[in-house]
């Protein structure tokens, strides 16, 4: 009511400042335990999520994923913070060359060498949402032979992306490399971490090497690193980790984003020894890949070891099934 009568933006801001100071005093008097001004400021910066009728959620007791009216994931809501969150699928097209020198190298089994600096986008849509006492699922379907389920299990502190990709279409005579991007508003300053070959988690910085001054001829491939189990980024508050179920190439090309390669089909050899293109010719149409990734959010700097989560993903229970035709429930 105070603000609505103000004409200029200066008056607005003056009034807001007065209100802020007033609120601060009231809070101080009531003994509210804010440690300092910085904490107050952070609180006021916190994005406020207003639930609207055209939006919906999939959730468990630990977090929520907010979906807009088209079913696209827009936010991840944790008990104490809200993050922008999007899952996007793209593909890179592979370079074709005569392999006489590095700049003429084809993208192949050994070499990832996209011909553009921006991936091609894919259109996809949410086709269904399922909610129940054990799992909540969101089904995504793309136009270029891609499908995925986003799952939130009861009690689990992650969400899972189960993807089915392929066969990759090559009727346009172009090799393609499909990727997924998890886009958030984390400020990681170009730094990300990968567990190279499962040996040791190493800090990576975009367009840099710790040992020498680097000029990258290939800005995309030059920032790709092996991910055996996990890749993560973090800012001062939050750490976002992606666990993979197999070795994949990964990077963080833009702020707050993690990119992982899902599937490749290429039409040219890269002349490093395999002697044939990475083109699945045996069944005539190419292969379909199914896999899953788990996305974890933790407090930055929290002494939380993801090793257990990683091992739990790789060493899942060994499940065997037996027909119990001759066995009654009581006997069992």
């Amino acid at each position, binding site marked *: 009511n105070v603000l609505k009568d103000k004409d200029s933006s200066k008056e607005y801001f003056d009034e807001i400042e007065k209100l802020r100071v007033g609120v601060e005093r009231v809070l101080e008097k009531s003994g509210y335990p804010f440690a300092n001004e910085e904490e107050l400021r952070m609180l006021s910066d916190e994005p406020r999520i207003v639930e609207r009728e055209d939006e919906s959620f999939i959730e468990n007791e630990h977090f929520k994923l907010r979906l807009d009216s088209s079913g696209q994931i827009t936010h991840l809501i944790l008990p104490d913070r809200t993050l922008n969150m999007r899952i996007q699928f793209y593909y890179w097209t592979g370079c074709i060359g005569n392999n006489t020198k590095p700049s003429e190298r084809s993208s192949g089994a050994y070499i990832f060498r996209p011909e553009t600096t921006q991936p091609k986008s894919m259109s996809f849509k949410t086709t269904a949402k399922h909610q129940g006492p054990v799992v909540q699922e969101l089904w995504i379907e793309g136009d270029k032979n891609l499908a995925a389920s986003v799952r939130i299990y009861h009690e689990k502190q992650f969400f899972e992306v189960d993807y089915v990709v392929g066969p990759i279409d090559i009727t346009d005579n172009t090799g393609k490399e499909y990727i997924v991007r998890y886009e958030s508003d984390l400020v990681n300053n170009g730094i990300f971490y990968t567990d190279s070959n499962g040996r040791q988690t190493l800090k990576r910085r975009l367009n840099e090497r710790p040992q020498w001054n680097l000029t990258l001829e290939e800005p995309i491939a030059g920032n790709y690193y092996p991910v055996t189990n996990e890749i993560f980024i973090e800012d001062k508050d939050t750490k976002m980790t992606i666990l993979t179920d197999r070795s994949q190439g990964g990077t963080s090309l833009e702020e707050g984003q993690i990119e992982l390669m899902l599937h490749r089909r290429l039409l040219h050899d890269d002349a490093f020894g395999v002697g044939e293109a990475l083109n699945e010719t045996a069944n005539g149409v190419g292969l379909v890949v199914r896999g899953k990734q788990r996305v974890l959010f933790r407090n930055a700097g929290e002494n939380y070891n993801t090793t257990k989560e990683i091992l739990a993903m790789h060493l899942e229970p060994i499940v*065997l099934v037996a027909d119990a035709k001759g066995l009654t429930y009581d006997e069992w």
Partner: protein
Amino acid sequence: EFVLDELRSALGVMQHHDAVTGTEKEHVAHDYERILDSAIRDASLIANQAFNKILNPNESLPTLSYKRCRFNESSCPVSENSEQFVVTMYNPLGWDVKQPIRVPVTEGTYSVFAPNGDEITSQLIKIPDPVKNIPTRKSKATHEIVFMAYLHPLGIKSFFIRKNKKDKRETKRTKDFYLNVNDYFKNLKDNIDIVIKSEENLKSYNDMANNYQSGDNFASFNTNDGKYDEKIIKNPQELETIDW
């Protein structure tokens, strides 16, 4: 021992740098798949024998024939074709895990029983329809039954899953409800004129049908503003507390 050796041998082959990185020729990749799949399938014989020894030590019950299923392609010939089956799992980790288990089945209603005999929460969820141009799996399964398994370190647990007779109970319940409603209306016909006037009325009757259980009673009454209403009386004591 010889099937275990086969698996050891296959894992040895898979240490080759081309197998690790995927830089082998295509026909070699398929040969690796053949070697690994065959070794894993044969080695599951050991798990089959071990589970039977642990779960049925005196052999007083029929020996179960455990099969490894291709859960990665939502396919399991045993669970798809069986009315009741046992799912036994081993946690290879040295700590407690709670793991979601998804077993491919055909559509129906299922009860999942934990090792202590209690029925546990489960959920039947449809397997997504094939996406245009993506070749799909060959399997009868249309759904997956999902439940959480709480497993001890290096522990084995066995779950009993039973397919219930197809919605018989639900059908009977709804039928009972409508029979009862008909009788009830028939008795009252001379006294009260009841007409389902709108979809809203119909919806409220459907809601009542969903809540109704065989043996429940009805109470009908006029509300203070003169409108007619009715309720399902689950508990006879409630009758005394209703404001007529």
